[in-house]
Structures are given as C-alpha cells and as structure tokens.
C-alpha cells in the first residue's frame, strides 16, 4: 500500500465519502464556470439553486440558460463517461489478468465507433436503429470477436493466455477502425466525414439533457454493479482457477461484468465518441492511490475518472482560444505521459 493509500484508509468511511463528493462537486462547478465565456462560480451555484430548489435568485436568464442547458449537461456527461470508462478498465484488467486491458485496447471502443458509423452514415438498420443502439451492437460484436480470436489463439479469457487477448484486441481494433474509415470514405459526404471524424475523437458539444438522462443512470448502475462484485474481482488475483476455487462462479461473473463493461463503454462512446487512455491510465493511478483491493479501487477509479474527464473537457475548451479541441486529443496528451510516469514509478517500487 502506498503512503497516500495508508492515509486515505485512516479516514473514517463517512468522511471519505464526503471528501469524494466534495472533490467531484468542485470539479463539476469548475467545469461549468470555465469556458469561452467565464461564469463566476458563485453565479453557477446561484443558477443551480434556482433550478434545483426554486431559490428565485435574480440572475441573467441567458447565463442561467447556458449554465443549465449547456455547461451542466456537458460536465455531468463528462463525469459519467470518465467514471464509466475508468471502471470498465478496472474490471477488464482484473478479469483478464492483464494490466493493458481497457475498453479502447480491447477493441470495444473501435467496435462501438463502427456500429455508430454503420447506423448513421451507411444507413444500417434503415432508420430503425439509433446511434446508441448501433454503438452498443458494435461494441458487443467487437468484444465477442476479440474473445473468439484470443481463444482460437490459445488464450483464455481470464486465464493463462493473457498476451493473446491483448494481441487479439489490437487486431480487432485495427479491423474495426479500418471498417469505420471504409464506411466514412465510401458513404459520407465531406460535411458528414468532418463531423464524424470530430465525433470519433471525442466531442461533448452536442450533449443535452436527454444524454444526461441516459448517462447518469447507466454510469451509476454500472459502477454499482461492479462495486457489488468487488470481492469476486479480488478473488481473480491469482487467476480464474483460483477464483473458482474460492467459490466465485467464474463464468457468470465474467459474463456479467464484461457485458457490463461493454455496455458502459458502448453507451459512453455512443454519446461522446471514443475516448482513449481513461480506461487505461485512471485504474493504474487509482491503484497507486488506494491499493489494489476492489472495494476501494472501484469507487476511487470512478471518482478519478469523472474528475479527469471533466478536467480534460475544461482543457479542451480553453487551450486554443475560440476553438474546442476533441477531448480524445486531451486525454491522450495528458494520459500518455501520465502512463509513462506510472510505469516508471511502478518499476522503482519493485
């Protein structure tokens, strides 16, 4: 356990939960107040008080509208995506016994993108399918394909062939990314292509309340489901056979949790595009902070992921004045060096 972890664990439970909420709330308020037009945090709080509790404070209705309909929805969805992707990463890393597993590397994000593009551009499903449904279908299909390929290559999900599954994931990602590009080049007009490219790299601009209505319950349910399986995830420490010997119904747990990760990822990607590095870096950072036991790791990863993505979203809006960068660019720019640091620090402690 690290020093920070020891310190965090000395805090009694309620105050830890309180601290968690406070950090997340602070990030959300910052996410709302920082942007092209700066809105003071006090105004943000007043606007929230008006909308949530009918406080009736005198405010510029313009500001209030921006805060409530644009900034808040955006920050909430960013937080949900961050939490969802980070927890998916934790779960995949635990079940596949591979520190490199994350929804992005496992091809789930690539599959979701292909599904989304197939529905929106290629017209797959003839209008009966929504973008989210397409993304979810693509995510599940990609994961199934990757798992099959890994199995055929001699790997087993959660078992000894941990290398195969990552290699299969890389192959799957390449395949689905190629399919996505193929569909775009073949069927999209120039405007569509530009729009979809922006979406693929992660874009929170179009987020509205109906997205929040999907993202919040899905993220909460996904994180709660994974947290409820914390002990089972711990039992995978020495592999899936050892987990089975400890009384974990391995196949069921794998199916439920990998399914949940695919669902979480698919829903998030369908809203904001495929965002890399969150599912990889955040679990490792959270482990440095609170240790490897999942009862603490899952909430910590969810919180860190949420704060990370809200912060990345702020950066994406302020780094280049007058322009919004794709959020995937920010997560990669911050995530890659952070991951390098974690790798090096992890090495030192051995």
């Amino acid at each position: 356990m690290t020093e920070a972890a020891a310190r965090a664990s000395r805090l009694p439970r309620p105050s830890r939960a309180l601290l968690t909420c406070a950090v997340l709330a602070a990030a959300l308020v910052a996410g709302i107040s920082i942007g092209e037009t700066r809105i003071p945090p006090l105004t943000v709080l007043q606007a929230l008080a008006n909308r949530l509790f009918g406080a009736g404070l005198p405010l510029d209705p313009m500001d209030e509208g921006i805060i409530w309909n644009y900034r808040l929805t955006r920050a909430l969805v960013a937080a949900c995506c961050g939490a969802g992707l980070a927890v998916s990463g934790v779960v995949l890393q635990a079940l596949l016994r591979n520190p490199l597993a994350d929804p992005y590397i496992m091809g789930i994000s690539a599959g979701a993108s292909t599904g989304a593009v197939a529905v929106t551009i290629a017209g797959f499903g003839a209008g009966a399918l929504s973008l989210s449904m397409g993304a979810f279908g693509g995510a599940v299909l990609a994961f199934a394909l990757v798992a099959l390929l890994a199995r055929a290559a001699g790997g087993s999900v959660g078992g000894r062939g941990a290398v195969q599954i990552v290699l299969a994931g890389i192959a799957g990602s390449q395949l689905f990314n190629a399919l996505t590009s193929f569909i775009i080049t073949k069927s999209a007009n120039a405007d569509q292509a530009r729009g979809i490219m922006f979406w693929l790299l992660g874009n929170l601009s179009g987020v509205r309340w109906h997205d929040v209505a999907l993202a919040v319950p899905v993220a909460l349910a996904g994180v709660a489901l994974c947290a409820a399986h914390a002990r089972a995830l711990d039992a995978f420490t020495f592999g899936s056979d050892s987990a089975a010997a400890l009384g974990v119904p391995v196949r069921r747990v794998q199916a439920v949790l990998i399914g949940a990760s695919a669902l979480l990822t698919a829903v998030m990607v369908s809203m904001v595009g495929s965002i890399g590095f969150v599912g990889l870096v955040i679990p490792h950072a959270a482990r440095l902070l609170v240790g490897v036991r999942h009862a603490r790791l899952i909430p910590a990863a969810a919180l860190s992921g949420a704060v990370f993505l809200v912060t990345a979203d702020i950066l994406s809006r302020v780094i280049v004045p007058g322009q919004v960068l794709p959020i995937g660019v920010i997560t990669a720019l911050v995530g890659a060096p952070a991951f390098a640091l974690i790798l090096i620090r992890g090495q030192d402690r051995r």
Partner: protein
Amino acid sequence: MSLETHALGWTTGRTVVLQDISLTVRPGETLGLIGPNGSGKSTLLRLMAGLLRPSTGHVELEGRPLAALPRREIAQRIAWVAQQADTSDRITARDAVELGRTPWLSANDPWSPADDAIVKGALGDVGMGDLAARQWCTLSGGERQRVHIARALAQRASVLLLDEPTNHLDVHHQLSILSLVRRLPLTSVVALHDLNHALGCDRVAVLKAGRLLALGPPREILTPELMRGVFDVCAHILTDPADGAPVLRIHPIH
C-alpha cells in the same frame, strides 16, 4: 468429509489424460498422490476441486455429486492450492491470505474480527506471521508457496487439495507443512514427488499415464517392483536404527 471419484476420466482433444479413476478419500486421512511428470496428478486434483468438468464419471462430496453443488458451497468445503500461481498485483502476504475468506463473506456477512483472527492464525501456522505485511513481489518462492497454503487454511474447508505443496520449500518447511497437514483434522489429498514424504501419508495413490495403478498404505504399496515400474528407479525401504522409521533409499537402475 468424504470425497469419492467414480470412473473419473478427462480427455482433451484426442489425448486421454486420465481414465477410469475410482477412489475414496476417507474422512480425516492424508492421501499422497504420486506418479511421474505428466501422469495426471494435477488434473486429478482439479477434477476433485470441481475446476475441470470430467469427460466421464463424476466426483462425489459427502455422497452428493460435485457438479450439482454451487461453487460457493464447494469452496466452503474444498480448498485447492495450485502447483503454481502468481500475480503482478501489488498485494501483501496478508491480502493474499484474506482471499481465503471469500467463500464465507457476503453482503450480510461482511468481514469481521473473527476473519482477522483466522487469517492471523493461518499465517502463523505456515510461519509467515512476521512477513504478513510484505509485498507479494518481494517474497521468495518458498514464502509465496507458504502464503498459498495459508490461504487454503484460512478457507476453513474440511478437504484440502494440495498440488506439490513442498515445491520451493526448504527442508525444514517441507517437513513442517507436511506435518501440519497430517496434524490438522482435515481430509487432504497431496500431490508429491518426494517418495519419502509419501511414506508419511496414511495412504498413497499411484498414477501412471493417467491410470490409477495402486492405492493403499505406503509400506504395502511402495514395493521395489512398483517403484521400478512407475519411476524407473531402484528403491528399497530401509529402517532407521535410531527410531525404527522407514526410509527410502533410491538410486538409478544400472
């Protein structure tokens, strides 16, 4: 607790790894499982632990087919230690032993001081009490093996399936682990390579090429003929003049 196998067999692809193994492990006994490399010892232990599905036959625990029991209930009764198991997670020795409590914990039955006491006791039993706070990656091979055994003890199962538990252990710890296993009021099946350790078991089962060749008290089973046929060595049981204990002398066939 009694554990029985009935005409047990396991086939993978076209290879028959085990066939027609029928044996009863008696309550409270220590059964040694011996046989050359690849004879099927680990596979038999996995089948007995319910980790592999038999291709033929079945395993019974207290007269109930293992396949009909939920995993959790099996784990409350049977603990299994793999021949090898490692992790790159940054866990401590105590964390690893705490995993042994998994089958007994649930939302209604959270971690309690009783679990702490069991974990502490198990670490003490294998002589790892002082190293409980050490990181897994800093432990030596033998220390890791002892932690695995402590985890199985912490599981508080009545059947212990140990796959070469003396692997990596120094002489002192080999003897202390084996005598611990014999002393505990548990039913144990222990895969072994050291035939002198097998001599200390209540009964031994001899596997060769996936078949059960012999089963019985070690002094009756470990005849020079059997050991020549199975292990391709010359071996005799001698008697230690100091205490009359049997000792195996083994040398290559010329």
